[in-house]
């Protein structure tokens, strides 16, 4: 399959007055089109740094990143980024929050407005289009944030622990919900998480990073023998425990 994203020997370090903190060391991997990749690792190991690099918010110190075979700057590939918090703006209605990316990219038209409305409808937010974000539940807010990202029709979706701010029950339902949506839309997605069961229930492959400076330790392909491959069915499948334990061991046995 065509690979949409390539990381080649990427190094990155943070600089402060106190000194240099190496965050990523010699990371190489590629992600195929339509694949769902989860990245797990000890907290503070530089998982989010990876996403910021892909998004072009920061520039690697050495190595290169290709999206659709081209370098990042001036790349027509559209990237969607979901942050840990929804960051819906209280001074905008839900509908206008969803339009934010379109406004910024000068893509507002009747067609895109229509699309935004349709997405809100299909993710159960149609009745709340004119509400303020604070009138929505945590799960609904996260779904609205997803619509804000999806309305831009991204080729690749970066998810930076987008469910970690939710309470456990909402987290399960919204996680499964959003995972299902992404699968149906056949989006390439990269999920950063510290929740192993979330990674196993959603991903096609799970990358395990080491402690800082993070290196890519292993890559675990996750396959389930299921007729309906939904996150919920995965959680109930016998292989689930196996994958969970495998990742747990990988994370906890540093050589």
């Amino acid at each position: 399959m065509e690979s949409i994203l390539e990381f080649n020997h990427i190094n990155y370090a943070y600089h402060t007055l106190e000194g240099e903190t190496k965050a990523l060391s010699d990371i190489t991997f590629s992600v195929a089109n339509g694949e769902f990749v989860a990245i797990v690792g000890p907290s503070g190991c530089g998982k989010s740094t990876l996403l910021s690099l892909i998004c072009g918010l920061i520039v690697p110190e050495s190595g290169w990143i290709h999206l659709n075979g081209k370098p990042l700057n001036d790349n027509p590939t559209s990237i969607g980024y979901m942050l840990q918090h929804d960051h819906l703006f209280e001074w905008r209605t839900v509908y206008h929050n969803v339009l934010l990316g379109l406004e910024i990219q000068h893509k507002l038209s009747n067609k895109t407005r229509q699309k935004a409305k349709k997405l809100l409808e299909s993710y159960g937010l149609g009745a709340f289009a004119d509400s303020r974000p604070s009138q929505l539940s945590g799960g609904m807010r996260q779904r609205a944030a997803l619509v804000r990202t999806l309305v831009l029709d991204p080729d690749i979706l970066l998810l930076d622990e987008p469910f970690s701010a939710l309470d456990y029950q909402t987290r399960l339902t919204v996680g499964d919900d959003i995972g299902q949506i992404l699968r149906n839309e056949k989006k390439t997605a990269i999920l950063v998480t510290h929740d192993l069961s979330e990674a196993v229930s959603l991903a096609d492959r799970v990358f395990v990073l080491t402690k800082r400076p993070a290196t890519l330790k292993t890559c675990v392909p996750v396959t389930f023998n299921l007729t309906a491959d939904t996150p919920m069915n995965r959680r109930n499948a016998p292989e689930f425990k196996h994958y969970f334990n495998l990742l747990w061991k990988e994370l906890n046995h540093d050589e």
Partner: protein
Amino acid sequence: MSKSTVSTAQQNYLNRLRAHRFIVWFLRVAILAGFLLLWEYTAAKDIIDSFIFCCPSRIAKCFLEMTKDGSIFLHIGVTLYETVISFALVTLVGILAAVLLWCSRKCSEVLDPYLVVLNSLPKSALAPLLIVWLGANRATIIVAGMSVAIFGSILSLYTSFTTVDEEKIKLIYTLRGGRFHALTKVVLPSSIPAIISNMKVNIGLCLVGVIIGEFLAARSGLGYLIIYSSQVFKMDWLLMSIVLLCIMAMGLYALIGGLEKLYLKKYSANYVNE
């Protein structure tokens, strides 16, 4: 909800609340009325020297006389005009300068000590200088009004701009927006409450500056009236001017309070949750 569904406990609570509000308002009015009556009584009985301390009835009579010949409206109008103009300029210049500082970190770090010094300088010291530079005219008074509020306004607006959640700005960048979008989509809209509370402070400060200016460089206005009447010992004019200034300050403040209420009403959901 109909009245019948309110429980007795709820009714008691509402009654207590109403009684509390009544007492607060009653005492407020009573203090003012008591003070005025005491003043009037002691002046009438010559317990205090009514030549120096004047009395409420003479202040009211003086006000009525000046409304008849219309001269009081000129003075009120002049002061009000100067205050509103300097307030509008402070608000505009303050926001623009804070935006510029926000746009360039270098610029803000370079200018920071100058702003701090100018802000802590007693502005009344500048007024004589302004007269020499600009002349004894209305421009001087308006600039004097601005000088009191402008530096503090820039500093506090800039601070509120910089305390905007970095993650919200990151969101703009992830949506492929630039610094300009961060400003117009996040920083300015989220700073509106700070801008309004800054305006509340500024309107009072501008009035202070305008009065200082009028003390030194005016032929009309309430500040001029205060200085003039103190020189010719017309205590009723002086005290009336001060009362009018109180009312004007209250009115201007209430106007901005109304603006704030309007904003909160429009975005009231903000204050229901979280």
